[in-house]
């Protein structure tokens, strides 16, 4: 069993299955836009519970995709620890060790993708106006004290398509528009920051992200995504290491690649 699970043949057929499932995902995400939007906004277990009754097909597709990814994880794991380790020990060549490390890092990246689905918490699309606050995870309070939009406010009044066309680098300067946001826990101020687009407030594993400015009844506010994920930093470091190892491996074994 382990022999088959670690074989290239199994990798090949599982990859074909995964590509087909991803391709199906491309189609499904076009037809069930709201379902996929919800998938990003709430916890995945809640999404499964919610979607099972009315959109069971997407849940089945999702389960198959997870199964295929899980099999890829096992495949890489078994192949690395039953074959590549032995090859590396036997040959003692640095490239062989690099090849093994590359696969180990890939396994970790894949695991991080899977774990990010079940650990951590998020609260998406929270519209807050100056003076508003929101409780996150029954632990943190996110407070907006001021929202400033110095560029042409009429841009925010336009519909989505027009707005997209007007939001040029000449019309919008990210640094001119911000929200003063504070993160509080048990009445203790943890962090406060002028949050601009693409520069969120971070405190440990908590992140308060400004995803958009909103204009409602003439009142200027912000759309916030609040997330807590212990894996983010680790994920990016391992991902970068994987790319560097990959680069080094190709560089060192350039002449030997078959």
């Amino acid at each position, binding site marked *: 069993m382990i022999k088959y699970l670690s074989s*290239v*043949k199994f*990798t*090949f057929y599982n*990859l*074909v299955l*995964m*590509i087909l499932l*991803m*391709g199906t*995902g*491309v189609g499904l*995400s*076009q037809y069930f836009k709201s379902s*996929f939007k919800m*998938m*990003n906004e709430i916890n995945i277990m809640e999404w499964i519970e919610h979607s099972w009754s009315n959109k069971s097909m997407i849940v089945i597709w999702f389960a198959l995709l997870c199964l295929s990814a899980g099999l890829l994880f096992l495949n890489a794991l078994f192949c690395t620890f039953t074959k590549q380790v032995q090859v590396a020990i036997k040959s003692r060549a640095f490239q062989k060790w690099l090849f093994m490390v590359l696969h180990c890092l890939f396994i970790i990246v894949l695991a991080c*993708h899977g774990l*990010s689905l079940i650990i951590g918490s*998020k609260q*998406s699309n929270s519209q807050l106006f100056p003076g508003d606050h929101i409780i996150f995870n029954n632990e943190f309070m996110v407070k907006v004290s001021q929202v400033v939009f110095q560029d042409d406010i009429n841009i925010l009044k336009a519909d989505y398509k027009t707005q*997209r*066309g007007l*939001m*040029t*680098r*000449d*019309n*919008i*300067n*990210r640094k001119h528009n911000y929200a003063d946001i504070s993160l509080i826990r048990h009445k203790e101020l943890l962090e406060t920051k002028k949050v601009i*687009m*693409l*520069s*969120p407030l971070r405190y440990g594993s908590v*992140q*308060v*992200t400004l*995803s958009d400015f909103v204009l409602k009844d003439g009142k200027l506010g912000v759309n916030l*995504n*609040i*997330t807590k*994920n212990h894996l*983010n930093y680790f*994920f*990016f470091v391992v*991902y*970068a290491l*994987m*790319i560097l190892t*990959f*680069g080094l491996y*190709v560089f060192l074994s*350039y002449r030997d*690649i*078959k």
Partner: protein
Amino acid sequence: MKQDFPFFIFLLTGLLFFLELIFILVKKTKIADKFRIIATMACMSGLAYIIVVTKRLPLFGPFEASFYILFILTLLVKESQKKHSFPDLSAKLSLISSIVILFILALQAGKSMVINPDYYMYDNIWVMLFFNLRLIAAAFLIHAMVLSLTGFYGNSYDQDLLHRSAKKSLLIGTIIYLSSEWSGSIWCLNWFGESWRWNNGFFKSSMVFLLVMLACHLPTKVSRNRFLRTLFACFPGLFVLWIIFFH
């Protein structure tokens, strides 16, 4: 000027590459080489136009992508010709690359000849890296496709040589592609609070990586089959072309 120039440069580039193909077919290699150089320069002027008008590097969209990819592709093919300098192999490489280049230009022919509308996030380093590296990676994956196809029509020695070169190009393309994805993940984290999201773009991006993985994990039976080996090496390049022109 803003509308006419892109169309003019597209026609000129297309015509020059077409003439190159004609001269390759009539075996006037030296003249064909000259046309390739002029066509590359025309491509470069299209690229310069995009950079001057937008004040940034090409990012995405058929028009920007086609000129950028063609420019890098012609340089990569030139480099391959230097490495595989046997006249017969070099001529085959010219022929196949010329056909692939004209195929890319034909895909662009049905699309509008305009550069993408500006967006305020294009000043962000992660956004620029995400889009720009993706196009460079695409050029490498298409280069791998060109090498594989050339190998397919060659003798067994050519096949082996070009298959190895194609694999190298595929691997370098993947490293660049993963760097692009890494930058894109940072962009996503800074914009939405998560490093990746369930959407159309995520599925397509993953498919590119999985297709490369597939080409590098062929079972012995499949990799011994000349047709299948070529087909799997071509898939990543074909798929990025589909993403760029029909996304």
